[in-house]
């Protein structure tokens, strides 16, 4: 009964989304605090968001680049 109820509330296939939400929601809230709280200044938050965007895109592009480079090294 309890197991069925638990599976209904959080299906096993969605556990990861729940975990990410538990992690990402407070981080997003704190990030909002960093961007909009404190002394008024639009330039630094915009620059900071730009840097975060660059870092995330750089990491994703980095995965693609490393994968492509290594595909030339690996035999077959």
């Amino acid at each position: 009964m309890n197991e069925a109820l638990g599976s209904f509330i959080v299906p096993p296939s969605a556990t990861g989304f729940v975990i990410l939400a538990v992690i990402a929601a407070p981080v997003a809230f704190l990030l909002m605090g960093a961007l909009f709280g404190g002394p008024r200044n639009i330039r630094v938050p915009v620059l900071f968001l730009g840097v975060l965007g660059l870092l995330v895109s750089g990491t994703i592009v980095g995965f693609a680049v490393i994968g492509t480079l290594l595909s030339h090294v690996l035999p077959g």
Partner: protein
Amino acid sequence: MVSLTRRPPIVDKATQDLLRPLLGRSRAFYLFAGLLTILVTWFLYTWYLQLTLGLGVTAMRTPVGAAWGVYIAQFVFFVGLAHGGIAVAAAIRLLKLKNYAPVGRMGEVLTVISLAMAGLSITVDMGRPDRVFNLVLYWPFRIGTSPLSWDVTVIIIYFTLSAGFLWLTLRRDLAELAGRFPRLAPLYRLLSIGYRPDENAKTEKMAWWLSIAICFLIVMLSGGVVPWIFGLMSSRPGWFSALAGPYFLTAAISSAIAAVIAVAAILRKVYRWQPYLGPQVFKGLGTFLGVATMFYVYMIFAEQLTMRYSAPISEFMVSEILFDGAYAGLFWPMVLLGFILPSLVLLGQAFRPKWFSITRTAVAASVIVVAFWIKRFLIVVPSLLRPLLPFPQGSYTPSWVEWSIVAGILALAVLLFTLFLKVFPIMEIEKHE
């Protein structure tokens, strides 16, 4: 590097002292960097061998043997270093611990480099690293159920925030230095783009908020998704444990504080930073490290008691590998000489201040760093040697290729730190001015 004659005179002694790594051109520095470069080149060669000949050149085997070895141990080690490093920086900002401010940026840099090395350690462990982009490609289909996907996601979030945090806190110093180092000025101007002195208050406040976010992520990553890769695997005796989260978190914080102490002591000696890295920094961090490491010893005791007292036989057998088996020669020296003895030294110094010595603190911290590396190895390997499935017990002794790659990645981490030191100020200049 930068011509001294072309640089405007630096009149402030504190600033000049702190910029010593950027100004210096000692032969020892270039020799050290050269040696590290040779090790990194050797790593690239051995990785090339592994890529072309396959994982058969390692000692990792399956189903009998260990499918994960020193690469994964190194990954967990670097993730631990990454968390504690920036934890120090975040705690300094959150709790306004001004005495410890000189080591804040060291922790931030340690974090960013360690995270990159953690990613590299995972990549070299993969049989087909050319498929690394599949992590992104199939992310939506895996994130629901795969702890490995949670891990990659949270590490990317953590890396992004940590690097952003470092950039934010560097801006003011870089804007200041752009006028003093003409050759590095384009890089400094690019990184401090749009800097205006009136933004300092906003930057401080943003750093404060981000510190809380980073502390939260440390708990979620080092005490959450990374240990869950191990702790959620019911098929592996020794890993399947609710203790995994706090166990890993304590190890992360202890090992990173130990690394920060060791790095700070080396830099203090090499660059004659005695006035800026005072004994109180080492006393405080050393005492905290002693307590945290002792707490970790208590957790080892709690874990082993559970595994030996009335646990299933497979758990007992894994414990037996450590107590009296193939890895007893690593386990007992690690516990006694790597954790308990240095902790007693550090706590002894806390109770009897006249015993305090920075060198002793740095040596104890360095021993603890090594012990935590060994501990990560002992977490990963023995459990894999005793599967629940009906296979005989395997064995694992890393091959020379694995040791070369591990040494090369460590050398790369030190090299990156050294290069950072040569190009950027490792202590906040403004705070000392």
